[in-house]
């Protein structure tokens, strides 16, 4: 005896359901198609959301790890002092602290001239990487040039540039920063700290090991510097990333909501199919009741039919959804394999559960109706 026969012997409702569904194959296929579309819609819209989020995160980069501390101008604090920087250094346990002084100055090489933001930094290596050349641990006399400025002035490492009349050797051209950044180097020049006028700092950037460390540092800095007065404002890029995540969460729910509507429509079509088929089989169900089949068994039989429709449609829909996800991720992210991640399987699983649930729910009324008809009425010709 095959495993399927064995299952049918154990759950006779399934055998009857299977046979009843094979009676009108076109009608059954159409009902299944409804569920397939519903499940496919929910699962693939859910995966679409995941892909969008992944795409956006890719664009943003690792910005969640940085925080920026700037003087609170509203409280009359014009710049951050060395004492502030010391306090920040003490508050940050896990990460590097980069005090920044900035000015807008004339930058030139030969007869090419431009006006650029000039950052004074001691340790730019903590937040920047070189595209060409080398970023020194301590910046003492050389300059680093952002990629935009480098293109503009046609600069490469080893060249000499002038910044506000002073001459610097360029030790590196900085890698172009893709995502958001607090101190964007692309159209700037970085020089040693002491070469930029002033005694204080316009901002301090902290680059932590992780988003969580950045958050902890921000809390510690606020506690330590803003104890008596609101001396500094602390800006976390993480608030942006979490905002973006939240947005995509809402977007996803919305997309899945749209998908669910199609499943509800599928549910109505199953209700219709089951109702029609139970009305057609009125006499048969009457015979079943006459020969001693209980009401509950009739309900089980019809629910099994609805459930079979749901399971079949759900499984086919899930397979198609995986296919759709692979295509989507190949096109949007260039990475078809990113379909196979936990979040997507959650959507597929949910879609299948919704599909089966909708089907069974739609079978309830026809089942109840068929089981409660008096056999005498059903058998009357």
């Amino acid at each position: 005896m095959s495993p399927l026969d064995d299952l049918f012997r154990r759950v006779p409702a399934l055998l009857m359901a299977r046979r009843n569904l094979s009676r009108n194959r076109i009608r059954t296929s159409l009902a299944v198609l409804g569920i397939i579309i519903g499940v496919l819609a929910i699962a693939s819209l859910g995966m679409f959301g995941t892909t969008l989020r992944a795409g956006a995160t890719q664009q943003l980069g690792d910005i969640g790890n940085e925080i920026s501390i700037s003087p609170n101008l509203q409280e009359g604090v014009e710049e951050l002092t060395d004492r502030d920087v010391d306090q920040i250094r003490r508050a940050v346990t896990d990460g590097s602290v980069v005090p920044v002084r900035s000015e807008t100055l004339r930058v030139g090489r030969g007869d090419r001239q431009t006006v650029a933001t000039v950052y004074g930094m001691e340790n730019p290596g903590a937040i920047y990487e070189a595209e060409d050349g080398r970023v020194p641990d301590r910046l003492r006399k050389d300059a680093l040039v952002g990629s935009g400025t480098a293109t503009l002035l046609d600069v490469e490492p080893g060249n000499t540039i002038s910044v506000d009349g002073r001459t610097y050797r360029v030790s590196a051209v900085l890698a172009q920063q893709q995502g958001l950044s607090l101190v964007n180097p692309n159209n700037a020049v970085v020089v040693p700290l002491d070469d930029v006028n002033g005694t204080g700092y316009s901002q301090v950037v902290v680059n932590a090991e992780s988003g969580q460390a950045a958050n902890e540092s921000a809390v510690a800095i606020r506690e330590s510097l803003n104890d008596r007065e609101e001396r500094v404002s602390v800006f976390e890029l993480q608030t942006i990333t979490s905002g973006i995540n939240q947005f995509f969460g809402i977007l996803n729910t919305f997309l899945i909501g749209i998908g669910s509507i199609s499943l509800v429509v599928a549910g109505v079509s199953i209700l219709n199919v089951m109702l029609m088929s139970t009305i057609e089989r009125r006499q048969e169900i009457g015979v079943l009741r006459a020969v001693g089949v209980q009401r509950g068994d009739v309900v089980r039989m019809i629910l099994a039919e609805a459930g079979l429709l749901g399971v079949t449609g759900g499984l086919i829909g899930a397979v198609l959804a995986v296919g759709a996800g692979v295509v989507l991720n190949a096109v949007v992210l260039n990475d078809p394999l990113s379909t196979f991640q936990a979040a997507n399987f959650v959507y597929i699983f949910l879609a299948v559960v919704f599909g089966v649930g909708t089907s069974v729910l739609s079978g309830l009324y026809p089942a109840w109706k068929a089981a409660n008809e008096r056999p005498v009425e059903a058998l009357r010709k």
Partner: protein
Amino acid sequence: MSNIIELRDVWKRYDTGGEVVEALKDVHFHAEPGEFVSVMGPSGSGKSTMLNVLGLLDTPSEGTVLLDGQDVTDLSDREMTTQRKRFIGFIFQSFHLIPTLSALENVEVPTLFGDDPTARDRATELLERVGLGDRLDHRPDQLSGGQKQRVAIARALINEPQILLADEPTGNLDQETGRSVLDLFDEIRREDDVAVIAVTHDPQLSNYTDRTVELIDGRIQ
């Protein structure tokens, strides 16, 4: 011998939109094990209603139904279904086989919901007994009218009932096939001591029955 089924003072009234129709009027009826009783009468005389009351498919408006000496008039739907399954086999004029199931599966239907490991063997034996041993896997549409009615008889016998209720069992069969079905009834009631109660128009039934009850206008004559 004691009665396997008995109707006492049974009335059945239908309320059809303000007008009350009396389908059964003070009906007394009984059948003993192994007895073959036919119920005859013109259409609309209440034969089918009587059969439904006997088969616990319908409850009388008044009076008592005794099954194997027990009052079964006021049982719940669930209990009635259980009693039907235990005591009664049904045979219908238009066979009422399930078209998607094989002959063997059709015979098994009454045992399907419930743990019954010997059902398949019994069904096979019954089909062999009614002469369809070589048609086990045929679907109803592959069987002739007489063969369908034999499958229906096998289905009625699967739970070893003590009463066989037949509604125009020969109504859809030609005379010769009808006769062979009646021979089968005769054999069943003799060998298994089953009471056979058949509602019919068919006059050839009286050649087989122990007695004939005539029902006219809801009353037994």
